[in-house]
């Protein structure tokens, strides 16, 4: 008796499913008007006859647009939408999830949404938008054939990024002066003021952005971390490591034997691996971790590494840092 294989089912699966865009129209879609244009991070001016309304966006960029009331029809993320810090607490109902892994976007599903705009950060170093960089699945790159791609340039400041998406949202019809949006922006400005004041009261305080790992300790290079550049701009002395890895200049690598190469007063801990107990755990696990005086003194705080896009998120993270700076002893590392 041979087992009958469900060939029909297999064949059906291999068929491309026709677009069944069952997306309910979001409540505050701005009325399409035109013509529309926006200057992309690459410098190119992208034009359309009418204002785009069906937007597919990368995770953080989607969060930025949503903070101004523009709801995309589809989102692609680099990790699970449950863990992506940008999407935490956001209501994603009615938004198609088109990918939850770097370099993999379900372009067929994206096409079925009939998008008229794709939004992803522009990375000047790679001359590509998020999701379309070198190294992603070739299939993912077809996303750019569905609609024009725009994004704000990732570079020297998170503030620039937030302002850029504010401008994009405005061009798409968002009322950026609405009271709740204005309040969120005001909150951010207050957070910056408080941060600056806290830093000013501790003129000798130095901070080091770190990410300990099992085989090495990594020290972040502010040159490639816009949020660290912002902190420096606002007066915090974030240490620039003197020997970034030439092949991957985001970090300087320290062997665990050299964990104490820098002696900051405050450790900014990579938020992707920070937990409340991390410092004690690493002290137990790595014989030299507590040779860093700040670690020994438990002067550690989470740093929002490489993901911020919105005023709201930045404000919340800044408040945490301000508290830590106020509590820090500026002579720990000396």
């Amino acid at each position, binding site marked *: 008796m041979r087992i009958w294989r469900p060939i029909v089912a297999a064949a059906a699966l291999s068929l491309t499913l026709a677009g069944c865009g069952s997306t309910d129209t979001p409540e505050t879609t701005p009325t399409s008007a035109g013509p529309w244009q926006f200057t992309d991070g690459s410098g190119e001016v992208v034009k359309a006859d009418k204002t785009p309304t069906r937007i597919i966006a990368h995770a953080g960029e989607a969060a930025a647009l949503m903070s101004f009331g523009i709801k995309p029809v589809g989102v692609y993320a680099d990790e*699970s939408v449950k863990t992506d810090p940008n999407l935490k607490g956001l209501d994603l109902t009615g938004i198609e999830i088109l990918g*939850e892994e770097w370099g993999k976007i379900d372009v067929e599903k994206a096409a079925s949404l009939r998008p008229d705009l794709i939004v992803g950060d522009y990375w000047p170093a790679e001359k590509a938008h998020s999701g379309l960089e070198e190294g992603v699945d070739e299939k993912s790159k077809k996303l750019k054939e569905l609609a024009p791609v725009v994004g704000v340039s990732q570079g020297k400041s998170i503030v620039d990024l937030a302002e850029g998406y504010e401008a994009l949202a405005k061009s798409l019809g968002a009322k950026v002066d609405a009271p709740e949006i204005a309040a969120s922006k005001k909150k951010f400005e207050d957070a910056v003021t408080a941060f600056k004041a806290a830093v000013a009261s501790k003129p000798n305080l130095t901070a080091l952005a770190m990410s300990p*790992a*099992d*085989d090495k300790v990594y020290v972040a290079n502010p040159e490639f971390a816009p949020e660290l550049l912002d902190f420096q701009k606002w007066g915090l002395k974030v240490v620039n490591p003197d020997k970034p890895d030439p092949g991957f200049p985001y970090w300087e690598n*320290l*062997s665990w034997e*050299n964990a104490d190469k820098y002696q900051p007063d405050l450790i900014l801990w990579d938020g992707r691996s920070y937990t409340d107990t991390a410092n004690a755990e690493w002290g137990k696990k790595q014989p030299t971790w507590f040779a860093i005086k700040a670690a020994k003194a438990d002067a550690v705080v989470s740093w929002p590494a490489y993901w911020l896009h919105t005023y709201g998120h930045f404000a919340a993270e800044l408040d945490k840092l301000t508290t830590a700076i106020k509590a820090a002893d500026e002579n720990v590392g000396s």
Partner: protein
Amino acid sequence: MSSSTVRARRALALGPGLAALGVILALVAFGSITLGSRDIGLSDVLRALVGLDGDGSIEHTVTVDMRVPRTLLGILVGAALGVAGAVLQGVTRNPLADTGIMGVNSGAAAFVVLAITVLGVRGVGVYIWFAFAGAILATLLVYAIASLGREGATPVKLALAGAAVTAGMGSLTTGIVMTNVDALNELRFWQVGSLAGRYAPILTGVAPFLIVGLVASLACGRALNGLALGEDTARGLGQRVGLTRAAAFAVVAVLAGAATAACGPIVFVGLVVPHLARFICGPDYRWILPYSMLLSPIVLLLADIVGRVVARPGELQVGVVLGVLGAPVFIGIVRYGRLSEA
């Protein structure tokens, strides 16, 4: 000069040669304790070793808590990989066999990511046991698949089964890692062989297995000599071929499994050092095994020292150094040496 006098002369020289290798290994081990990515003066190292500086200084910590366990682990793991490679080449009569083709590395990796994703295990100290179990199970699976059919586990069937299991485990690992960032981060630490970040608990965890495996391997020499004559001849000489093969595989699984669990997959030593040993000793496994056991840790520790000194203030994984330095050496052996038939 007849061949018997050559043999006799050779045997005369091999014993002292082994002793000389022991001395060299001791010197390299001392080098591994005194040299590293941190610059510590010789007098500080010596004071730390004899416990005269008990002030909790970082020099003391680095020397005693980091370099000493690292060096001991390097010696044990190096010896284990060299011997496992030699035994495997002997039992499969395949001069290019190394523990990788037995599914050891892929099995260990698959179990590490399974432990991380399914059981939420964290920390090197815990997941080495999963790696160990995975390596052993993969080897058993390869052996079981190869044993199907009439002639039992022939070298060809072993190579095929090894390739199949490696591919299967590999896709399992990739599938999990693609959807789990944590697993990817843990695996990244573990995917290139390295002696960094392994301290006393890992050393004491795997040392018993490695020591037992090394001692047991030395008992395989005669049997491997018999197998080298071909299976029929070995049977004619009264050897129980199946039993020999199973015992040899058990030794390889324990040695390579524990070594890989502790340090990740380290290439090159298990493949090349046995050839070096054969080049010195000739075809007698009773010499090849102890020579491999001493030569491998010398090679591994030297590569590790290089990796720690050239990339200050960071360090290079020993697996990377071996890959870079090992490739030309291997090509040289193949081209100019006599890649002696195992």
